[in-house]
């Protein structure tokens, strides 16, 4: 008997994952839909939060239309522990974490993959806009999606060979408009649903309100200094500030002031004028090279320091086995500790690392 390859598709009830499931059915995979029920705190019923009864209903109706089984898998505890608690404690340490990146690494491509293994699935599929290509020596390459506007390779840059070889990304060669058209062709109710924007667990009120509710209530005020080292004020805790931030620094300055850097060890906030903002180098650790091997350095790449940041040309130098120094030609203004730097060679993701500091003129 000829067994079809079995694939678990992560379904959210949104357009992308619904179309991903449909395409896999068209490609004659044996498709099983799963939705992770994540921890959503008190915003459980907000329309934008994930895994609401409404989105479960939408995913269910897509599954029925495609005649595939669909299961809701509880992942509240594991998500809370690996993503939410990390998010809260990182912020409290003055870092700016990227919970979606961490969720992909520790929940979707770990917990959900283990559920896929339990039912003997060969692959895990998602509705991300990125491509995975296997070369002739069976190395898997992670590439940007065809749709530059929607490209989500950044958020997948924490995946390893072991995970990429088990992953299918059916939307990688499609544009968002094509995806919507396919959804319309299938008469999916979700065809016109807007893309989700907020973090799935903080809801509409945003991450500041979330941190105010769930973070430690203890304020850790500290000193605000200017670039020259003079004390110019007091802050209410580094967690409330992001590098490049202009609002909320108090008034009475002659020229607009920006957060230049945060000294987490001294609990000090450094502010300055626009021209003082930015740095020509930053340092990253927790490096993940997609190929599994570090390329020989120095080498030039395009680096993205946030999901929606424009890539800039950089050179990568080894500091030690666990850390890299990234040097850019023009100052970057908002490299922020905790955020993810992703290195590209043209359209291919070479690797990623977590920004640990921003030093160097």
């Amino acid at each position, binding site marked *: 008997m000829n067994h079809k390859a079995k694939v678990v598709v992560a379904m959210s009830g949104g357009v992308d994952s619904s179309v991903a499931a449909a395409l896999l059915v068209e490609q004659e995979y044996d498709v099983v839909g799963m939705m992770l*029920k994540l921890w959503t705190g008190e915003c459980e019923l907000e329309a934008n939060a994930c895994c609401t009864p409404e989105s479960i209903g939408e995913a269910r109706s897509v599954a029925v239309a495609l005649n595939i*089984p669909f*299961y809701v*898998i*509880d992942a509240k505890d594991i998500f809370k522990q690996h993503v939410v608690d990390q998010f809260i404690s990182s912020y409290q340490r003055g870092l700016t974490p990227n919970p979606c990146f961490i969720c992909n690494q520790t929940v979707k491509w770990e917990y959900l993959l283990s559920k896929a293994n*339990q*039912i003997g699935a060969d692959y895990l599929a998602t509705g991300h806009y990125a491509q995975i290509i296997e070369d002739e020596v069976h190395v898997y390459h992670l590439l940007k999606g065809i749709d530059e506007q929607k490209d989500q390779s950044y958020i997948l840059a924490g995946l390893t060979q072991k995970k990429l070889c088990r992953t299918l990304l059916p939307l990688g060669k499609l544009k968002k408009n094509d995806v919507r058209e396919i959804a319309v062709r299938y008469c999916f109710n979700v065809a016109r649903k807007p893309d989700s924007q907020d973090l799935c667990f903080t809801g509409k009120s945003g991450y500041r309100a979330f941190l105010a509710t769930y973070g430690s209530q203890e304020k850790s005020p500290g000193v605000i200094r200017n670039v020259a080292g003079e004390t110019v004020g007091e802050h209410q805790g580094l967690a409330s500030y992001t590098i490049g931030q202009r609002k909320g620094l108090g008034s009475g300055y002659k020229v607009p002031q920006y957060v230049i850097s945060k000294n987490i060890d001294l609990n000090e906030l450094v502010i300055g004028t626009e021209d003082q903002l930015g740095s020509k180098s930053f340092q990253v650790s927790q490096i993940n090279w997609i190929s599994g091997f570090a390329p020989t350095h120095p080498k030039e790449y395009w680096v993205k320091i946030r999901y929606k940041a424009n890539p800039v040309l950089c050179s990568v130098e080894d500091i030690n086995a666990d850390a890299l120094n990234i040097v850019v030609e023009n100052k970057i203004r908002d490299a922020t500790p905790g955020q993810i730097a992703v290195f590209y060679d043209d359209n291919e993701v070479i690797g990623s690392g977590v920004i640990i500091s921003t030093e160097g003129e």
Partner: protein
Amino acid sequence: MDRIYLDYAASTPIDKRVIDEMLPFFSTVFGNPSSMHYFGQKAEGAVELARQRIQNALNAQDYDVIFTSGGTESDNLALRGMALKERNERGSNRILISGVEHHAVLATAEQLKKYYGFELELLRVDVNGKLDISQFINTIDNNVAVVSVIYANNEIGTINPINEIAMICRDKEIPFHTDAVQAVAHLEINMSSNEIDLLSFGAHKFYGPKGVGALLKKKDIELLPQITGGMQERGSRAGTHNVPYIMGMVKALELVIDEREFDSTRLKILRDKLIEEVLKKIQGSKLTGDPVDRLPNHASFVIDGVNGNDLLIALDIAGFAVSSGSACKVGNPTPSDVLLAIGLEPALAMGSIRVTLGKTTTINEVNNFLSALAQVVDSIRKSKSGVL
């Protein structure tokens, strides 16, 4: 793929004979039973006849039959309707329910505690889920507004000594309700030889339609209605009667009672084979609920080191429909209250599986299920110990 359904405690298909009984009441006899004219009279006649047929089927001439939307509504009406009425009349403020009730009873009682100020106590059960009678006798007093104990447990199949419990309540003159949703399909219930005051059931557990049920209520007892409006059901439950569904429920009840002895004998043989083989074949498996006093179609287990929901998914993909407990709790990751109440460790309680057989279940289906279960448990255990 040939799919095998082994979740008859969750729901059953409607018997063809039941559908035939229902059909005229969708179109020919469509009137509103509360209307005065010919059409209304026909419909009302049917409903009243249905009421008598239910009384006859259960020997319940001393009971009012209140038609509801199902077992859950009957439980709600009995508990809330009784508790509020009793407090109003007698000032009694305590509610006693067993620790292994269906959520229809538990959540209602918890709401009565939280929003109406009742004291709620969960009665102790033994390791098989049977009510601890001596603790119950020590707990019940005049200040109790209502006692509710499940007749036969949906998750673990254990049958309670309901007549004995009812008698204790009668001695103390405390109203006694039992949720008989699982029991009606399988156990002989003779309302003229017990002291039950209120008994709930829903039709879809015995090959009748979903969305219809009844509460039997001793005629001398008064309840505070929970759905108010018209004077249907003598004021106990407002809302136009669901005539076709009521007719279907009556027919289904009559059929299930007629065929019970034959079905039960057959189901018990299949059930015992299933239990014996699971305990023998699946390492780390343990029967939950009473080994003897259990529903004839009901087998339930916990399996060490296996998550019940994972097991369910894997079995479903292999073509076997079973449950991990109550269908009303799917997606809820916390271990079942019922399994904790019978003293299982939370980790072990997460590995629960319920297999319930029905009229058309065959020995072949049971055998196929047994080999699928062994395979699935094996592969889940292997994938857990393996590297990702």
